[in-house]
């Protein structure tokens, strides 16, 4: 019996050692615990298909953004303009498709160029001036916040652009970005698959390619990285452009799904992206983190957001509950993370 216990203990040790090496293990543990917690508190309502559909639908925009923002944070930078850039993408495609009558696919492509240019601007400014990205992207944040509403009003006379479904190419773009599988309320949006796809691809880039190593190096110790021939500036600019691309994707997905765009939206969302990345184990100082982690962080947000009403708690307290839950999730992550011997560690 003792032999078996020792064998079991060793098996456990080996298993935990292998699993604990992953930086996302803490967030997975936190998400699982939170999910089980709400499953009990809601008398099992959390595991119904309709509730799972709602959780994933709440999580995917944060998920796609958190993957990009998380990668940017590993690379040592922040993007505070990511939230309003989602609205910029939507406003741009709305103006071009509804007001100028462009095909939605063309409008989407042009709006991608706008976002890429904005991302490049963020990156160039950070690299050239050496100022903290916090300050640079705060400037972009305010600039876009004003430009979104001003340009929308200039071209359409309103801060709300409607009737995107009447533009050419709507059906095909809608099919690609916003198709729903299943019957409501058990409907899953194709966006969830896009989110999974982005997570897998970017995760692969981070762990299996040279670029991934460069990103860790650029965020961990830029000077040393430069000395070792890592193109730190190019990496950082690319990361800002990737974040802008994610914002573009979420922005146009929302636009075709809702067939309307509110130019004033997105303010404050940038913090939720960063929160999801941090809950998912990305270090705030850069150089450490994962991509599955931020995705799980977004999922934690979805679980908490849907779990609170499912558990029948008073919605007046929603933000307070969310604050506590996020703190608990991060603490669990931190505890588990401390045990983990890190590959790209301190």
């Amino acid at each position, binding site marked *: 019996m*003792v032999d078996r216990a020792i064998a079991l*203990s060793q098996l456990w040790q080996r298993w935990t050692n292998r699993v604990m090496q992953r930086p996302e293990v803490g967030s997975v543990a936190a998400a699982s615990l939170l999910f*089980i917690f709400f499953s009990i508190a809601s008398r099992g309502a959390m595991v119904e298909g309709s509730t799972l559909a709602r959780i994933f639908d709440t999580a995917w925009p944060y998920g796609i953004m958190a993957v990009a923002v998380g990668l940017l944070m590993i690379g040592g930078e922040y993007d505070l303009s990511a939230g309003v850039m989602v609205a910029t993408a939507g406003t741009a495609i709305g103006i071009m498709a509804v007001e100028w009558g462009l095909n939605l696919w063309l409008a989407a492509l042009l709006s991608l160029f706008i976002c890429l240019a904005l991302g490049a601007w963020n990156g160039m400014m950070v690299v050239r001036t050496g100022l903290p990205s916090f300050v640079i992207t705060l400037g972009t944040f305010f600039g876009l916040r004003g430009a979104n509403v001003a340009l929308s009003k200039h071209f359409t006379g309103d801060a709300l652009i409607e009737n995107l479904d009447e533009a050419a190419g709507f059906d095909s773009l809608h099919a690609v970005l916003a198709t729903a599988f299943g019957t409501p309320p058990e409907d899953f949006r194709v966006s969830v698959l896009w989110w999974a796809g982005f997570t897998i691809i970017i995760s692969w880039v981070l762990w299996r390619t040279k670029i991934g190593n460069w990103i860790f190096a650029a965020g961990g110790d830029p000077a040393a990285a430069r000395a070792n021939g890592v193109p730190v500036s190019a990496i950082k600019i690319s990361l800002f452009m990737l974040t802008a691309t994610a914002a573009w994707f979420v922005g146009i997905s929302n636009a075709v799904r809702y067939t309307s765009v509110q130019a004033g939206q997105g303010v404050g969302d940038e913090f939720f992206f960063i929160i999801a990345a941090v809950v998912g184990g990305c270090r705030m100082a850069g150089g450490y983190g994962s991509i599955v982690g931020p995705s799980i962080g977004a999922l934690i947000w979805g679980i908490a957001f849907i779990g609170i009403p499912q558990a029948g708690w008073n919605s007046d307290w929603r933000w307070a509950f969310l604050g506590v839950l996020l703190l608990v999730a991060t603490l669990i992550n931190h505890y588990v993370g401390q045990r983990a011997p890190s590959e790209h560690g301190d």
Partner: protein
Amino acid sequence: MTNATALARILIGHWRGLLLAALIGLVMFAAYLCRVDEVVRTQGQTASLPQIDLRIAMITHGGIGDPFWDQVAAGAQSAEREFGIELRFDGDGNINTQVRLVDNVVAQGYDVLIVSLADPDAMENSVRGAIEAGLLVLTINSGEERGREFGAITHFGQPDKVAGLAAGERMAAAGVNRMLCVVHEAGNVGLGHRCDEAGLSMELSGGSYQTLFVTGTANIRETTNEIGAVLLANPAIDGVLTLNAEIAELAQRAIGEVAADALLATFDISSDVLEAIERGEMLFAVDQQAYLQGFLPIAFAYFAHVEPELETSVVLRALRRWSASGRLLTGPGFVDASNVRRYPEIRGPE
């Protein structure tokens, strides 16, 4: 003996894990303790009302803590007590969030959805989905026309265009020549209608108007400064129309801060607005009866689910007839110097 020692050693070796497991067990037990219990209904205060099992969700585009929507919530909550139904009141100014709140209510199997449609296009799929899932859908406050198109049964609120037109007329009649209309929720179709129609009234009587988008109730300091800055830059503005009682108070402060010579009128009322009208510092307020926008749809949903023969309340029967037309207008009513003194009595305590 050695066996026991070895076992103990293994357990001690895993003390962190065991402690964590114990903690998790404790938290899960806590979750079990605070799970949703069968909802304990407060019995209807009116003894003659039959008790029915009805779950009603009211999902608005107002953020939690917004004074206007707090009045709506107060009306909804007193209806909840009166009719002994189960109510979920929630809302968010972010359209993405409001869509998800509505979808979640449908997933939770509610019987009735009462919803405000500030951005009807974005809400279309969710509202249609709710109707397909068999929910009775009613609209309040905004989105009357589109809501009916989606399949909502009845609307409770004030037609924004009619109210805007009337407000503009009153501004012009008070001698305003150049009006500033303050929009506090960019992207709210109904607010746009109010300003456009009020502006039309101004133009019809030879005046002009301009619209200003402000940050809103989320940041009152910033909103005050935004209004003040425009007043300072455009001394010709001699009238300000706000679309929310809290914004009206900010506009009043802004007018004072920059010493602008502008008359002020607003949509919606609060006790501060009523006092300002009484002191003569505000021209008028357009009242759309926020409390009733919360109370009436729940009363309607209740009697829509009660067998007619069980329905003993004369008041409810009258209400059913009233709302059968598909709209129950709660405004526009006007509060000005002529009736402000009587107003709190007419409205009664909330």
